């Protein structure tokens, strides 16, 4: 009886325990807000550091390709062009390859364990650090493709994209190594969305006599389109920001050229190359270039997220 009474007297929590609870909750809240703080911090810091260059060159920075620390003239057109061309072209190659592989993994052409092996191989590829891929590109891929590039120039030199003598390290090699890096992203996202397409859609299509690929092209792929698109956009963001492998193989030249066989530049490779030894207004110009890169990848990423939310599978 006595015991029960004390129990009821204490049925409110002790003050100290309440406080601990509150402190715990607020710490967690503060830690999660840190994400937003870091994100805004990055945007603000990069913006303010680029302010000097921004006020001097304005938007001209984006369309001139002069990059001359001696004369103090800066324009990032070559790098911006390189970033867009390498990422878009590599994506163009990756999309059919990645979606094709994803279809292979989700259809039943071969026994399940083979598909699982292929799937985990592709995912392990994503774990290889990009600097190692760069090393591999320099010493294995470049010699392997050298003859092919000479051939390409000889027979397709009339196309502006192949119009220059092939250089040892060039934009086309950067595109190829980007394909290797994007393939896991596109494949795994496409596979996940294809797996989510409900079975009854497929059965319905088979039931009215569609062949397997008619079903894939007219039913399964359209149903999975939004997910695949989001994966493609994520891969695009990744390609634009990818630094190491591209820096090591693209040749790093600021001379503008339409040809993919000549050395090029991307924003991230320019940063990697010049940031360490830059000073004066060059630093500010590099920050400006970094700001451009950040805006590009932010826009692509936010668009991808919006796409996922808006068009996520409704079945």
């Amino acid at each position, binding site marked *: 009886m006595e015991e029960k009474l004390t129990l009821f007297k204490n049925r409110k929590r002790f003050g100290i325990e309440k406080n601990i609870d509150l402190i715990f909750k607020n710490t967690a809240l503060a*830690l999660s807000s840190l994400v937003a703080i870091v994100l805004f911090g990055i945007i603000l810091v990069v913006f303010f550091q680029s302010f000097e260059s921004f006020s001097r060159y304005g938007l001209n920075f984006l369309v001139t390709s002069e990059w001359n620390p001696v004369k103090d003239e800066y324009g990032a057109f070559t790098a911006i062009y390189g970033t867009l061309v390498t990422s878009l072209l590599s994506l163009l190659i990756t999309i059919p390859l990645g979606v094709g592989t994803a279809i292979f993994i989700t259809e039943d052409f071969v026994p399940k364990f083979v598909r699982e092996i292929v799937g985990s191989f592709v995912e392990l590829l994503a774990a290889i650090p990009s600097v*190692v*891929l760069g090393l591999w590109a320099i010493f294995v891929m470049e010699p392997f493709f050298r003859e092919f590039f000479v051939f390409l120039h000889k027979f397709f030199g009339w196309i502006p994209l192949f119009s220059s003598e092939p250089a040892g390290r060039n934009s086309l090699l950067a595109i190829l190594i980007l394909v290797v890096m994007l393939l896991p992203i596109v494949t795994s996202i496409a596979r996940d969305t294809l797996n989510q397409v409900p079975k009854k859609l497929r059965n319905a299509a088979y039931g009215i006599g569609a062949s397997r690929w008619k079903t894939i092209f007219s039913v399964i792929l359209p149903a999975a389109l939004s997910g695949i698109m989001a994966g493609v956009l*994520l891969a695009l963001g990744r390609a634009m920001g990818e630094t190491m492998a591209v820096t090591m193989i693209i040749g790093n030249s600021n001379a503008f050229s339409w040809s993919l066989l000549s050395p090029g530049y991307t924003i991230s490779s320019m940063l990697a190359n010049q940031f360490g030894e830059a000073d004066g207004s060059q630093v500010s110009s590099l920050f400006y270039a970094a700001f451009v890169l950040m805006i590009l*990848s*932010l826009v692509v990423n936010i668009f991808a997220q919006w796409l996922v939310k808006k068009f996520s599978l409704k079945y």
Partner: protein
Amino acid sequence: MIMNSLYYQKKLSRNVGDKFFTSLSVFCALIAILPLIFVVTYILIKGGSQITPELFTLEPNPPGDDLDAGGINPALVGTLVITTIASLISIPVGVGGGIYLAEYSNGGPFSKFIRFGVNVLAGVPSIIAGVFIYALIVSTKILFGSMYSGLAGGMALSILMLPTVIKTTDEGLKLVPNELRYASLGIGASMYTTILKITLPTAFRSIATGVVLGIARAAGETAPLIFTALFSYYYIVGIEDLFYEMGSLAVLIYNFALEPYDAQNKLAWAASFILVISILTVNIFSRILAAFTEKTKRV
């Protein structure tokens, strides 16, 4: 003439088309697995042949016509140190943030905003993290007057790890069945006891797997380090070395791959061998563990 429309006709355009596309898809899959096989084979051959005991104990020699490149000890230790710093920052922050999102936020606008921010932060190019830390820490010499330092490198890496840790914590905690929470709260436990004693331990395995994968990923990152931690040829001996330039395997590979000397290139292959083998081991191991957990799941 037998009407054989019920039989499989090889020459029918739909069957020919099906065959064609099937082989196309098999072809895609073959191309997709080729890079991994090629990369890993070359690293095993070119890197594996360079592995000697001295590799792990010596300092690298500065590039020159020197035939002997030395070892990678400082870079190996540096990678461990920098990744540890990054983990020490990002794991508490990430797990704490993930706890808030999964346990407290109830899907309000704030948590939606933070989850969106996590996804955006995950998409920020890794070199931008380096640029940010350079502006914030290296160029301002805010860390006791030191410029390039292992500490700054660790901070840059932690920015890249943070989204991964938050996401895995958030998702891991969301998988914990609500009954466990109700039971704990029902017998009078407070919120923080419930989280620390019930939900976190239940989700521990999936969170740990994600975090370990994040660490493995960070260990191979180069771009944030090249102008925050820079590179160093010298042994790491004491705690004060944290405030000076610090080497890492990734930056060593980058620097030495671009050297014109064969000895340095070989060292880069050896470093890649160690880096790739450890990262792949961690990946495969956690994959097996995850598959195992899936099979033995009780709830």
